[in-house]
């Protein structure tokens, strides 16, 4: 489907990114919210608390807790009894949840959680990169990444729909860049209750904790059965690939807004150089691509919306005819000198006929700004790769040599 984004100025208001997310959560009719405030996620939970205090979220309980570990643990119980459950966190808060993340996904509880992406300590840093959520890659959660505040608002409703699908039943993280998106004021259409009610039916799970009809969730699984639990989680992720596309298409039909499904493409059709990235840097890359295209340079963008499940086939289809693929990562696997998107993109070309050079850049760590010039340099280096092959496979951008 061709990307469309109807700009309906009449319906737009200028609000903070965090407000539009909180508004979306409210409109999605959650039954239980539990979260612990942490910068830069704080404005989301403040807004939700305000909505609760004003009686604007009916049939919902907001559980105050003393830590992120408790926040997510509370939602294990809530989701298991059939409540639509939501949390939001970032950085150290998400890392503290690590153990519970596995519990939620292993019990197949479709909790939706906003992750406002922030660097992890030490050294302490409250600014944006994506190390926090990328480090939770293997916990069995769906991970979606948004480009701007409208996509964040809309993706929140899509996440509930995908997670709660009876053929999926996996928790979902909706990830968005801290400060850059959480604290930006820009025009956005706030989700409308009547449309969301059509889009997102009430959560009606087949299996719930109920004393009248006792069942066990997450009970002991010995070696004779544990493997099959894992197999079924992976199978559900496979199903989610299609459900993510479906959720985006259905959303477009009702709301007239579309940002891609698993991925989105920008000027990729005839592109020699294709840049791959996730999150708010996408907008900056698009501006640079427009400038390069006006000079006749064939540069395109592959935006990855879904990092888990990883859209191998969608990516392969887009990049197969490119001459260079450049992957940007706001994270690093220390000891491999690669970002996760880069590693995984490379790996999905192996054992195939695709033989396109792939280079990686680790970029924007700990809030280091990404000006257009940084993207310009990366494109220039990609042109060198086209003419004379790969010199450096994976590297940091904008290293301040004088500090080393």
């Amino acid at each position, binding site marked *: 489907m061709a990307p469309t984004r109807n*700009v309906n100025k009449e319906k737009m208001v*200028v609000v903070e990114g965090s407000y539009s997310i909180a508004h979306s959560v409210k409109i999605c009719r959650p039954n239980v919210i539990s979260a612990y405030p942490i910068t830069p996620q704080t404005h989301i939970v403040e807004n939700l608390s305000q909505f609760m205090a004003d009686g604007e979220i009916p049939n919902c309980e907001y559980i105050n807790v003393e830590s992120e570990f408790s926040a997510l643990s509370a939602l294990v119980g809530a989701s298991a009894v059939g409540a639509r459950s939501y949390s939001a966190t970032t950085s150290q808060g998400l890392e503290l949840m690590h153990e519970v993340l596995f519990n939620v996904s292993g019990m197949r509880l479709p909790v939706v959680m906003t992750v406002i992406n922030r660097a992890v300590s030490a050294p302490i840093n409250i600014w944006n990169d994506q190390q926090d959520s990328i480090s939770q890659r293997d916990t069995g959660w769906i991970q979606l990444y948004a480009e701007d505040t409208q996509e964040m608002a809309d993706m929140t409703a899509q996440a509930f729909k995908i997670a709660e699908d009876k053929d999926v039943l996996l928790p979902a993280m909706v990830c968005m860049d801290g400060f850059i998106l959480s*604290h*930006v*004021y*820009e025009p956005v259409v706030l989700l409308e209750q009547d449309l969301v009610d059509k889009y997102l039916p009430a959560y009606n799970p087949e299996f719930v904790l109920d004393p009248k009809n006792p069942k066990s969730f997450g009970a002991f699984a010995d070696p004779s059965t544990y493997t099959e639990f894992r197999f079924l989680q992976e199978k559900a992720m496979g199903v989610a690939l299609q459900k993510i596309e479906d959720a985006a298409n259905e959303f477009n039909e009702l709301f007239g807004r579309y940002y891609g499904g698993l991925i989105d493409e920008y000027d990729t059709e005839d592109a020699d150089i294709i840049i791959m990235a996730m999150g*708010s840097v996408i907008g900056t890359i698009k501006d640079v691509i427009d400038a390069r295209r006006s000079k006749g340079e064939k540069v395109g963008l592959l935006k990855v919306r879904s990092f888990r499940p990883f859209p191998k086939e969608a990516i392969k289809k887009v990049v197969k005819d490119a001459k260079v693929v450049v992957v940007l990562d706001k994270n690093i696997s220390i000891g491999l000198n690669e970002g996760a998107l880069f590693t995984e993109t490379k790996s999905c070309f192996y054992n195939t006929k695709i033989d396109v050079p792939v280079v990686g850049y680790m970029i924007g760590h700990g809030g280091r700004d*990404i*000006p*257009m010039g940084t993207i310009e340099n990366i494109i220039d280096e990609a042109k060198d790769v086209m003419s004379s092959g790969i010199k450096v496979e994976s590297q940091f951008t904008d290293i301040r040599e004088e500090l080393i």
Partner: protein
Amino acid sequence: MKEIRIHGRGGQGSVTAAELLAVAAFADGKFSQAFPAFGVERRGAPVQAFTRISDSTIRLRSQIYEPDYVIVQDPTLLEVVDVASGAKDDGIIIINTEFAPETFKLETKATIMTVDATRIALDIIGRPIVNTVLLGAFAGATGEIKPKSIQDAVKERFPGKVGEKNAEAIQKVYDMMMETKA
């Protein structure tokens, strides 16, 4: 696209001013984006906030390095921050001060304009809070935005008497800037 950088100190409402400017610009029919310089907020420390205003959707997410317009809330910042950094040659730097523009020897080709927003704020609002008042100066100096749009945005954010007083001060400073330009 026009890019605006606001310099202030923590607690002076620079971020609020950037946000109100974005709200007002959108009301004027433009697209807008406002964001803070993501500092660790400490009262009194130098801070920056940014606003972009454009006829089309704004996608760029970097900070602003070559502003068309600079607003300086507190003249003591000139000693510690290069407020003219990257300012476009045909740009305007608006400084809140009682002194004339010639007083300031900034390394820039941008036009320097000054306004004693603190005095106006004390006279009309009764407190030396100039963030909203300076938006009136911005409207007058640049013509990028209608003063009424700023007043409406301020009154919506600060309902009642506070908003009314701010709107009055905005008008006063706007008129002063228009006279300076004439």
